[in-house]
């Protein structure tokens, strides 16, 4: 895996890279250069298969991370191309031209994360959810428990007692340094 990483380093400038397993390496690159790198890998380096496209929400840093996983059918090596995009109105270049199944991935990420892929055929078409009015649910600032309490009634009659606080109250546990 080392050679391909060196090659990417030379051609596409500074990247972050790490070999996770003998047949799996990770590459971090700026979003602008991501799709050119993918195209180059597909056309010239035999990484023909798009295994999957996924998004990760780094809410603390205010970024989304897009991860394309390419596979090389001959050598069975896998390459994980990751790039970070800003969380405010996130957008990324589509790869549906290179791989037909990318349409479904991009449609799902659009629905679940709100990342738009201009030029991808089924953007905005509901894929999993029906009549969804809230923010894209896979974002980390969407609180699923609060949503359930508001919209999906459950069965009452249960009272949760936390043993730690229960014992504290029953035995008069008190602090003397803070009021």
């Amino acid at each position, binding site marked *: 895996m080392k050679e391909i990483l060196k090659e990417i380093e030379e051609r596409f400038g500074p990247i972050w890279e790490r070999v996770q397993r003998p047949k799996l390496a990770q590459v971090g690159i700026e979003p602008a250069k991501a799709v050119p790198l993918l195209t180059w890998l597909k056309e010239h380096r035999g990484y023909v298969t798009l295994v999957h496209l996924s998004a990760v929400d780094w809410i603390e840093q205010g970024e989304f991370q897009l991860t394309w996983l390419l596979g090389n059918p001959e050598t069975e090596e896998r390459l994980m191309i990751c790039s970070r995009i800003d969380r405010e109105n996130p957008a990324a270049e589509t790869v549906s031209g290179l791989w037909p199944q990318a349409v479904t991935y991009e449609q799902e990420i659009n629905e679940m994360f709100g990342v738009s892929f201009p030029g991808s055929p089924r953007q905005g078409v509901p894929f999993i959810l029906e009549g969804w009015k809230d923010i894209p649910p896979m974002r980390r600032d969407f609180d699923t428990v609060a949503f359930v309490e508001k919209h*999906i009634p459950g069965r009452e009659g249960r009272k949760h007692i936390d043993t730690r606080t229960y014992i504290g109250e029953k035995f008069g546990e008190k602090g003397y340094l803070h009021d």
Partner: protein
Amino acid sequence: MDDKIVKPEPPLGGPPQGSRPHAPVGDGCFLGEEMKPQAPSYKEALARIKNWFRANSLWVMAYGTGCGAIELRPLATARFDMERLGIAMRPTPRQSNVLIVSGYLAVKSLKRVIRSYEQMPSPKWIVALGSCTINGGMYWDSYNTINRLDLYLPVDVYINGCMPRPEALVAGFQELMRRIKKGEADGWRHYMENLDWYKENQKKIITDWDLPEYNW
């Protein structure tokens, strides 16, 4: 038709007593005429016989709404053979009178389940499998699954287990059959009488409501 006159007790956690049923039961409902005031005794015997036949030929709709449907397959095929209990799988709602809600229900599925249920002829019964139909099961905190089935559809029998084994399903069906023979399993009548309450609950959870208003 079943001529029991006693007013059914409300479903648990169901609507408050005395809520105005949608339309006087009987008109507008598919079979119309069965709610006469006082049945002479021979009608009682006739009802019991009808119930007996009904109980011994349950036709289940082949709609695996949740993960529990996989344990229906051994029941339907050679190993546990529900055929001997008179239970058969039917492809469409029109030909079946038992709907098995086999576990969790996504909101999207709930819409289709309600529609299928309403297309089934009365009397019809619902068997709810697993813990997801009682209080949400493993997906209690998921934004896409309902936590209590009895708010949206009247349930006659709950079979507990995640997921209930074929043997538990056999026990469940036998319990359903016993309740039908005794004339107790009348969730469908309750659905008709409290249609407003059910529709109101359903509309609260299904946002893009495009289902018909009546119970056809």
